[in-house]
């Protein structure tokens, strides 16, 4: 096998494992990978892409709702947080999901400062994940272009 392919595969393996170890991803992401095959080779990327679109939309909703200073409808913010929590859970976006849990509590407590902080954090977090996953998908692409197969990574 090509030395380049082997090197890329090792990079990919290490990178993927680090994403799990650093808490960016959890085993639901692994579950999504099970649903990908040669017939649907881009399934994971497609779902994650939808998820990131969801992030943009929902965070926008939350920001607008929080912008109504003095008359913030925390139920409305909470509803968007709940949705984001759901979709992050479905794709294995562990850190985003964790933030949503805290965010939801702040909404229930009608804690404005807490909500604003969470909003900022969630925004940073999804973008960070997006970048990390892009790097991971790029590695996959490079492996394939070098003539290799993307290895299955055993997280445990």
């Amino acid at each position, binding site marked *: 096998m090509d030395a380049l392919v082997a090197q890329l595969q090792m990079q990919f393996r290490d990178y993927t494992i680090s994403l799990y170890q650093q808490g960016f991803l959890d085993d*639901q992401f692994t579950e999504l990978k*099970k*649903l990908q095959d040669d017939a649907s080779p881009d*399934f994971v990327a497609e*779902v994650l892409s939808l998820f990131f679109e*969801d992030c943009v939309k929902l965070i926008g909703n939350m920001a607008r709702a929080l912008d109504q200073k003095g008359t913030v409808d925390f139920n409305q913010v909470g509803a968007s947080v709940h949705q984001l929590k*759901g979709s992050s*859970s*479905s794709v*294995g976006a562990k850190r985003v999901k964790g933030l949503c849990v805290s965010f939801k509590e702040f909404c229930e407590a009608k804690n404005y400062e807490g909500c604003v902080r969470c909003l900022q954090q969630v925004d940073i977090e999804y973008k960070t994940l997006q970048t990390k996953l892009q790097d991971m998908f790029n590695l996959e692409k490079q492996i394939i272009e070098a003539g290799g197969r993307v290895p299955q990574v055993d997280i445990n």
Partner: protein
Amino acid sequence: MAVGDLSSSSSSSPELHVLAVDDSFVDRKVIERLLRISACKVTTVESGTRALQYLGLDGDKGSCDLKDLKVNLIVTDYSMPGLTGYELLKKIKESSAFREIPVVIMSSENIQPRIEQCMTEGAEDFLLKPVKLADVKRLKELIMRSGEAEEGRIKNPSPNTIIQDDIDSSSPSSSSSSSSSYHDDDDTPSSKRMKSSVHD
């Protein structure tokens, strides 16, 4: 439990047609893939109202041709704007045409009273999100077995397998087909199934 006519073919594994209801685009995509990979036909809709429309339960006869694809299983999210999954379940169970169709509720929240409420109303099962492949496989097995029970067994002609709505004597030692699909060693914590009087 009568599943109704599972399929017109008597082949050993007829394809299930599943109607999946969820307001989340991401979740619809995932559940659709989970079901397709498990060899099911899938139709996804984004709300309880749309689900009723699809089934033709809203009084509008518009989607006739779609209804020809008989639905064998409905999987629905619980928390949805408008009609909740629970309300959808109730409407389906109230309908003479569709009450036989098994309905499975999905929720990200593990709320016992909610689970009980759904099971009491006749839900087939209650899945905790995020839904995994193992959940869908198990579900499919459960539904297929119920269907086989209805049509009568070819391989296992034991008395329990005579078509009946409630099998009151559960005999775990009898055929592989008769028992519940909940194996003791199966730890799928995402499924919350209550003991229900519905089928086996």
